[in-house]
Structure formats: C-alpha cells, structure tokens
C-alpha cells in the first residue's frame, strides 16, 4: 500500500499529477514569461516584451488546457476531494480564477485590439501583473492541500474558509511556484532569443535566468524550513521514505547544474536540468504525500469514485493521449522549430547562436 501505485485510483491520481506537471512545465512558463514582461527593463525592454508575446502567442491556450484537464480528472475520479478542496480553498481559488481571466484576456486584447501604444500598455500591465499573481495563488492552493489543514469529518469539510490556507507553508509554496515558473520562462526565452539569433536579448534572459535560479534556490531552502513546522504530516512523509531525501538532494544538484549550464551558455542543457528539477520537486512531493490526496486525512482510496468510472476514465485518458501527444508535437514543431525537443546543445560551430563562453 505504501509504495506501489498500481491500483486504479492511484493510477488516476497519478494522471492528475502528470497533467499538473505538464501544466507547470508549459503553462507555468507562460506565466513566468508574464513575470519577465512585468520586469522588462534596460535598453531592450521593448524587444523583450515582443519576444515574450511572440513566444507564447500560438501556444498558451493549448498549454492552459492542462489545468482544465487536471480539474476534470480530479472531479471525475475523486468527486469528494474536489468538493472538499473547493469548499475549504474557496477564496484562493476565486482569486486565482480572477488572475487566469485577466491574464488570458489581456493577452489577446493586446495582440488583436487597437494598436495605440497607450492602450496596449494597459493590457500589457494587466497581463503582466496577473501573470505574477496567479502562480502565487496556485502555489498557495497546492501548499494548502499538503499542509494538513483541510480536515474532513464524516465526509464533510470543516473550515472557516481562511484557516486552510493562511499559513506560512502555503505562502512559501506560492513564492516557490512563482520563482520556478519565472526560472523556466527565462531559460526557454533565452533559447527563443538564441533561435532568433539575437545575442543581446539572449544575454538579457540568461542573466535573468541566473538570478531566478539563485532566488529559487533560496526560496526552496526557506520553504524546507517551513515544512517541518507548518506541514508536519508532509514532513513525516519525507522522513518515512528516506529515498525522498535523496530526490530532494537530486533536485538541488540539478539546480546547481542549471546555474552551471547557464554560466557556460549551454542553454539546452540548462533547459533539460531545469525541467528535470521541476519534475523532481513535484514528484518527490507527490510521493511524500502518498497515499493521501488531501492531507491530513483524505486518502486517494477514500476519495475515489466507483471503479467503473475510473476504468472508463483511464481508457479515455489513454485514447485521448493518443490524439493529444502527436497534435502537441505538431504544434511545437511548427512554432518552435526543428530543435524544439533537443536535449543538449549541439557541438559548437555547428550552431549559430549559443557558442561556449
């Protein structure tokens, strides 16, 4: 029970984690780009913003659907958990929704609306601020689910609507989410600028990625400190499974790797390490929390819907995935070029942009 995941409910719960991982890696980076839009500065501020708009324009809607996928799988497979989470975290969820609405609509209005600079600037500001606020609330929500404050008694949640999320750990998670998204975005954008052969812009984002990597590391350390105090059940989950400590260590090594790769201008390597780092953090967390869906006392098994629904859901997920992944592949190939899935940088000389330092 404690280690293996091959029962049906765990499989479905795992697929929610998969969707959330893709959401973080793809949608999260779109939010992170918005952060850099807000922080655009220096002589090339305008070009930075244009690169961002160009980079996320064709793909952000598809990237956003990962969140919807996670939600619908959650309420199909685990209706009880969905009801409890939405009740206890009503306020941060609502605030996150406001951010989602503001970000998406401001982005298209800027792209397709009137072209006067002052109006575009207003849309741009809304887009950028919403891109900062939304990941913070997303992190708060995830942090709350893990911090053991959503107490379910007799199939109903007990809450005053604040206690579940007003705490140091959820807020630390909000900050960490924001930093990780900004880090992802900076690395992706450096590659984007590189493919556009714009070295100055690439250096802008390289510098930003380095700063983000260091800040992320700091915030991660601080939140580790809060876990013990503020999320004791999760902490126990870590301690009970010694190998999770190893993966936490691995994510730190990867963080250092990202910094090293950025220093050496190995952008594809940096992207690889940062992606692995996010995956490592998210899945270590999921395993530490297993078998609980909502801490402290709602397990995956308890929250699971009937077997038949889970079976159909799994079949639907597999069948849908067969359509989805080739389509996504096509989308990124069309807009991100031939090297979109490159894992490491091609040897220098063979390549226009990223030469060694």
């Amino acid at each position: 029970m404690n280690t293996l995941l091959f029962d049906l409910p765990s499989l479905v719960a795992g697929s929610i984690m998969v969707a959330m991982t893709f959401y973080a890696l793809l949608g999260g980076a779109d939010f992170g780009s918005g952060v850099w839009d807000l922080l655009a500065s220096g002589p090339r501020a305008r070009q930075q913003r244009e690169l961002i708009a160009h980079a996320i324009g064709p793909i952000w809607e598809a990237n956003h659907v990962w969140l919807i996928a996670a939600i619908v799988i959650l309420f199909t497979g685990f209706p009880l958990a969905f009801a409890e989470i939405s009740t206890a975290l009503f306020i941060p969820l609502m605030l996150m929704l406001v951010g989602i609405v503001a970000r998406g609509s401001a982005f298209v209005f800027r792209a397709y609306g009137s072209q006067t600079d002052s109006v575009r600037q207003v849309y741009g500001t809304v887009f950028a601020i919403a891109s900062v606020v939304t990941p913070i609330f997303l992190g708060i929500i995830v942090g709350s689910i893990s911090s053991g404050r959503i107490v379910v008694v007799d199939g109903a949640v007990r809450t005053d609507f604040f206690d579940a999320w007003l705490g140091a750990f959820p807020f630390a998670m909000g900050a960490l989410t924001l930093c990780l998204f900004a880090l992802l975005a900076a690395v992706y954008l450096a590659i984007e600028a590189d493919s556009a052969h714009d070295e100055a812009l690439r250096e802008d984002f390289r510098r930003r990625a380095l700063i983000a990597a260091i800040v992320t590391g700091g915030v991660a350390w601080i939140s580790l400190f809060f876990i013990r105090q503020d999320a004791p059940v999760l902490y126990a989950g870590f301690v009970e499974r010694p190998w999770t400590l190893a993966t936490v260590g691995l994510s730190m090594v990867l963080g250092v790797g990202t910094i090293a790769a950025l220093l050496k201008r190995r952008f594809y390597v940096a992207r690889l390490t940062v992606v692995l780092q996010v995956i490592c953090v998210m899945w270590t967390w999921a395993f530490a929390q297993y078998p609980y869906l909502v801490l402290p006392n709602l397990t995956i098994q308890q929250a699971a819907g009937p077997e038949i629904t889970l079976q159909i859901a799994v079949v639907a997920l597999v069948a849908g995935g067969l359509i989805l992944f080739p389509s996504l592949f096509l989308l990124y190939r069309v807009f991100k070029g031939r090297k979109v899935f490159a894992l490491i940088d091609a040897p220098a000389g063979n390549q226009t942009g990223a030469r060694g330092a």
Partner: protein
Amino acid sequence: MTDALAARLLMGLSLAFHIVFAAAGIAMPLFMVIAEWRYRRTGETVWLSLAKAWSKGAAVLFAVGAVGGTVLSFELGLLWPGFMQFSGSIIGVPFSLEGFAFFTEAIFLGIYLYGWERVSPRLHLGAGVIVAVSGAVSGLLVLMVNGWQHAPAGFEVANGQAVNINPFAAMFNPAWPHIALHMSIAAYQTIAAAMMGIHGIMLLRDRSNLFHRKAFAFALTATLITGVLQPLAGDFSAKQVAQLQPAKLAAMEGQFKTEQGAPLRIGGIPNPNTQETPLAIEIPGLLSWLAFGDTGATVIGLEAFPRADWPPVLLVHLAFQIMVGSAFVMLGVAGLGAVLAWRRRRLPDSRWYLWLAALAAPFGLLALETGWVVTELGRQPWIIQDIMRTLDAVTPMTNLGVPLVSFALIYVALAVITVWVLTYQVLHSPRIAPGHAPAA
C-alpha cells in the same frame, strides 16, 4: 440577498457570459473554414480576406471563451460542492472527454491563427476543419452533462449516495438529443445572424465593397438555413420536455390547470397566485397538438405539482415567448432576403433591407440567452431533476455577494472590451473593389 441566491446568480451569469463565446467557438471556425475552402477552390482572394478577418475575430472570442470556461469548471465545485460530490463520477466522463476536445481545439487553433505562412495550405485547411469539429464536439459533450441534470440516468440512489453507476447511460440521457440538436443549431444561427447584421451595417456605409457583399450573402444564407431548421428542432425540444419535465412545460406555457385540448398561449402574464394567464392570445388545442401530436391530448398543469416544486412561472413563460418570437423575427428577415434575392437576381442591398438585417441581428443572442433561461430556470427548484434540490447543493461559504459583484464587474469589462476590439477589427476590414479580378 441570500448566499444561495448569490450562488445561483453567479452561476447563471457566468454561463450566460460563456455561452456567447461558446457559440462563437462552435460557429466561427466552420465559417472561416468554409471561406478558406472557397478561396482554395476558386482562387478569389476576397474569400481569403474573409477567412483571415473572421479568424482574427475568432481568436479574441476563443480566448475570452477559454478563460470564462475555466472559471466555470471551477465554479461547479466552488458553488455547488454538493452537486459535484454526488455527480462527479456519474457525469465526469464527458467532462474528461471534453478536456481532449479543448486540447485539439486549442492546438489546431494555434496552428490555424499563427500558421498562415508556416504550414502548407492543406495542413492549414485541415487544422481549420479540426477546430470546427472539435468546437462542435465540445458543445455536444458538455451538453451531455447538462442534459443529465434535466433527465438524470445511469445510477440509483441508496442512502443519499449514487450506486450502480453506468456512465454511458448517463451520457446518453434522454434529454441530451434534443438539447444537443437545438443548441448546436442555435450556435450557428446566433453567429450567422450577428454576422449578417455587422456586414449589413458595413454595407450601409459602402455598398460596393465586395468584402462585405460576400460576407453578407454568406451570413444571410446561413441565417436562412438555420432559421428554417431551428423551429423544427425547437418543436422536437418541446415534445421532449412535455415527456421529461412536465412542470417545465407547464411553466413555459403558463398552464396552471391540467387540461384536455390545451390552448397555445401567445403572450400573456401568468400569475401564480390566481393561477391564470391573462392577456394571452389562445389558440385552442394547439398546445396539446404541439406537445403530443393530438389536439385533444391532456397537458399536465402546474396544479399537479406541490407549490414548492414550481419553477418561476412568469420568467420561464416570458423567456419562452421571447425566444420563439426571436426565431420568427430572424426567419422572417432572412426569408424576405431570400425572396428579394430570388426576384431581383442580386444581393438584396437596398438600404431599408440592410437596416432590417441589422435590426434582426441581436435576436440570435436574445434567443440564445432566453432559451437557456427557459431550460435552466424551468428545472428549478432542482439542480438534478427530482433527485437533488439546488439549495441542497450549494456551498456553505458565506458572503457570496462579493464574488458575485466582482465577477459581474469583470464580465461587464470583458464584454465591453471584446466589443470594442471586434469593432476595431470590423472598422479596419479590407476594402475590395467590385471589379476586383480573381487571382489568376
């Protein structure tokens, strides 16, 4: 205002907002794909201009629809946790499938919008077709959920829990066919009528612009086709409602007494206290005939139901009248246009007719919204017909007035800006001279 009322208003408001964009998400891709296809077949660049112009509009509408839809998927749990806890595993499957439909729609829309110069013509057109199909499929899937609320199927209730769940029976519930048919046509009709009005107004400013002439002719044809089909689909809906939700039918028609050979009431103000519907034009036997195909059939009146189970009769009846009236306005205007076009063998572009077309344009939206008011208010007080009451599903959260007002303001702002952005696009649409030769 009670919190439950605020929750209902917020849900209704969000859906009323979303449905406009959803209709566009269903219809616009089809229209732009048809335009692009005609360009590829005939080489007439005006069709290419139309496809590009419409796809720009679709980009905006789609994005606002996507964020609004995201709000809805969360609101189901935020506002109605009791409902989702009970029914998530019964009707979650179509929602999950819808997730994939959204994915395909968003992916290929990205390729369509940003890929004019990047992919081959064949792939581009194919991407458009996929967007159009997945848009329609998204609608069909979510309506499975909605249909299930009206005619729940595929489960049994034991101790307040759903058991013996059969998700397929829930998906293909008895209300789904009529709702899916009628709503899908409504999406195309609403957008067609709106386009007819927009391009009509632009023709009033410049009658020789080939761009707007083609678009107007296209929209007029689409309004006519859907305008003929929709009353037939609506009649099918009414027959189904008569079987599945007799209280709703009674409210729609202001029918208080159970009656043989019930009359069809046009207009009228139903009064639940006197249990009469004064000021209506009554056509004897017609309601019985419309609902059951027999002028003598018995129509169940509201008196057959406990007073606590009555839907809000006045609103449902008025909304129904407005929807049906709007249908005939659109059909009349489009039909007249067809007659004019046939007799004059040219586009009906006299000023008075263009004005008429412009005035008819909003009736699609009006029918769309009032139709949903009929359907959803007519189901009250049930969130799941005869299974769960709306009041038993609502969140324990208090102060719901705050999110209600906030989202109302957000929706107003989004609506205003969307209209503004679209107006900007329309005003900057291309001018194509009449003699413009088709590309070689």
